[in-house]
């Protein structure tokens, strides 16, 4: 992507403090300030201690509470200053009015960064809250980095550092970094990513953003070798110009997916010109994001799907695709959707149609592209032949295989076996993997589920298992064909959509 000129123009000296992000995201030792002296405590501190242990964090954990004692077999230190070894990162979950002094002691013993989970700061809108937050900023400026306050903290699967209240997040590391003010959005995406196949390098929910926030985090993540795809949920930003320049610089290095919340009608602003009345916050934001080269998404599902596509597909645009599936209106709807997103489904040449047609049931099948296999029980080996055949057409740069697995319920019933035995889902996913390896062209799997009622729990299970098999073979999976095609279009727009 030739974003070079843009980047050089916008690069300028930053006044960001030197930060040891390695110690923050991969700490060898952490302190948790504000654990309760009681193992049954329900406070954030104790919750984070339990979650961090459940995640299998391999470093040393130092619980801190002025009362001392022990918790889950760990000694509770009365003060951070009593901790015998170095501490890289600290979780602060004490009452808001004790946060400044806690932070001060962390600074004193050389902690690189903290997350402040406590609330009771500027978000209250009270003078007291704002003053407490200003004190946090003053201390931070003297040499310690702060995530929060009023946040769910950071998540780094590689190190086992987890978000509040996340004991069950994936430890599998991956290319996607996620940044949001919102803790709820972060923990939701962390959980969703686990089964969707979105693997994270790191996640930061920064809450009030008293110190570290969107622009500086973009600056860092753009340079972070563990991160290949950056994803953000934004409500408000602090500094438009800085955000814009960091965003433009980041998109010249790697895709940045932005979900901007709160785009409803701009407040009533009295304006005299047409231009000003046209430029409500929605259209300005959309234009700014486009100008900066960001990938814009409109909801959490689209965000997750775009992340999946960027993380799992090769970094290029896919202009021509083939779609292989069984039955229904797949052909027409696929073409309609693809056209909407500027993607072609070229008709295969006659010799390939003949080759593909020879392995498909007749009548009812069609080998033109979209390829309608006519029957949901066409086996993995035949599907492999179909995909291998279609890949022969050099216009095809990516293939989509749609499997309507719920049809296997009938087969399972007829033979009196569980659906997971009736459907050859493992073989299918391996065949698709073989096709990718032989052709060098990516394949995306689509697993629609029309049957989500309580009587179809076995189908839901089959689809979940199939998804897992695909993902373990590096193949992205989407629920609907439309989702897959839209996600491809995001990839296309990023890698191929720039006007030179």
């Amino acid at each position, binding site marked *: 992507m030739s974003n070079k000129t843009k980047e050089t123009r916008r690069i300028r000296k930053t006044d960001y403090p030197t930060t040891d992000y390695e110690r923050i995201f991969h700490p060898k030792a952490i302190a948790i300030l504000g654990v309760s002296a009681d193992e049954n405590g329900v406070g954030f501190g104790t919750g984070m201690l339990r979650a961090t242990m459940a995640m299998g964090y391999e470093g040393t954990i130092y619980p801190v509470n002025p009362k001392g004692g022990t918790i889950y077999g760990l000694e509770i230190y009365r003060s951070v200053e009593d901790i015998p070894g170095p501490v890289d990162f600290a979780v602060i979950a004490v009452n808001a009015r004790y946060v400044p002094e806690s932070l001060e002691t962390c600074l004193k013993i050389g902690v690189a960064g903290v997350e402040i989970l406590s609330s009771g700061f500027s978000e209250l809108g009270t003078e007291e809250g704002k003053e407490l937050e200003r004190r946090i900023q003053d201390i931070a400026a003297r040499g310690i980095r702060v995530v929060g306050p009023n946040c769910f903290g950071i998540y780094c699967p590689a190190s086992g550092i987890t978000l509040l209240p996340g004991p069950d997040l994936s430890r599998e590391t991956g290319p996607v970094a996620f940044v949001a003010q919102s803790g709820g959005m972060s923990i939701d995406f962390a959980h969703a990513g686990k089964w969707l196949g979105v693997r994270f390098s790191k996640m930061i929910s920064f809450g009030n953003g008293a110190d570290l926030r969107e622009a500086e985090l973009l600056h860092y993540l753009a340079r972070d070798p563990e991160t290949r795809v950056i994803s953000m949920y934004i409500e408000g930003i602090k500094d*438009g110009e800085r955000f814009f320049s960091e965003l433009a610089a980041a998109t010249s290095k790697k895709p940045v997916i932005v979900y901007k919340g709160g785009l409803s009608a701009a407040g009533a602003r009295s304006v*005299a*010109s047409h231009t000003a009345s*046209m430029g409500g916050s929605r259209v*300005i934001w959309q234009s700014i994001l*486009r100008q900066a080269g960001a990938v814009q998404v409109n909801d959490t599902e689209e965000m997750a799907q775009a992340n999946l596509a960027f993380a799992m597909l090769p970094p290029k645009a896919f202009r021509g695709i083939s779609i292989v599936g069984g039955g229904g209106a797949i052909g027409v709807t696929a073409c309609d959707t693809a056209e909407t997103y500027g993607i072609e489904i070229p008709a295969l040449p006659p010799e390939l149609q003949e080759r593909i047609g020879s392995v498909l049931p007749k009548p009812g099948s069609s080998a033109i592209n979209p390829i309608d296999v006519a029957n949901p029980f066409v086996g993995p080996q035949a599907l492999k032949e179909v995909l291998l055949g279609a890949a022969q057409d050099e216009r095809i740069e990516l293939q989509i295989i749609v499997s309507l697995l719920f049809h296997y319920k009938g087969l399972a019933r007829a033979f009196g076996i569980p659906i997971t035995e009736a459907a050859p889902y493992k073989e299918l996913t391996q065949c698709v993997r073989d096709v990718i390896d032989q052709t060098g062209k990516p394949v995306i799997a689509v697993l629609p589920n029309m049957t989500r009622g309580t009587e179809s729990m076995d189908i839901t299970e089959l689809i979940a298992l199939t998804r897992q098999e695909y993902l373990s073979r590096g193949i992205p999976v989407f629920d609907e064909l439309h989702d897959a095609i839209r996600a491809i279009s995001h990839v296309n727009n990023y890698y191929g959509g720039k*006007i030179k």
Partner: protein
Amino acid sequence: MKNEKAAKIIDKALKQGRKTLSEHEAKQVLAAYDIPVTKEVLVGDKTGLEKGLKKIGFPLVMKGCSADIAHKTEKGLIHVDVRTATEAKKAFREILAGMEGFEGGVLLQEMVKGRRELVMGLTRDPQFGPCVMFGLGGIFTEILRDVAFRRAPLEIRDAKEMMQDIKGRKILDAVRGMEAADQKMLVDMLINVGRIGLDFDDIMEIDLNPVIISGSKPVVVDALMVLK
């Protein structure tokens, strides 16, 4: 590097405590930034009118011109396709009467011919500062709202992308016997509208509507600049 000519016009209006520039002033600011505007003269009396008619030539457009009057069409202050001196004199009297004592004069303007109308503009976003707009002009601006924005300063690519962003982008091509619009000129105009916004914090909004494509050349036919 502020343009001095433009600065003078803007300072004068600010000193007078005005909230807008007159159309004529706005166009002088535009011209100072190499943005093509209609050939025009501002006249206040009959002698001026006669001289002006000679300078502009027929057919022409006559408009009431005052910083205090924003929407001229609604107030009957625009006479288009004026073809003779007699018509011009009649229009002159009617416009002055219609201005109801507002300070200003009558603008004599070449009549720019072209079927394609565009809009360009500038607004200040509280987060991102001056943002330039491009889109379909004339009555379609508000009806179709087919516009795109970019934050200033604009690069050539930003300006080109804006033109691609609007749904009606084909209007710029060679269609129905019309020449393709001069893209380079449009790019320069958009970049320079952004420069005006960056150079003058006192200009809150700019509306250039319509910008008519005459042959292949875009010309600003009406202009509004709102001050702080």
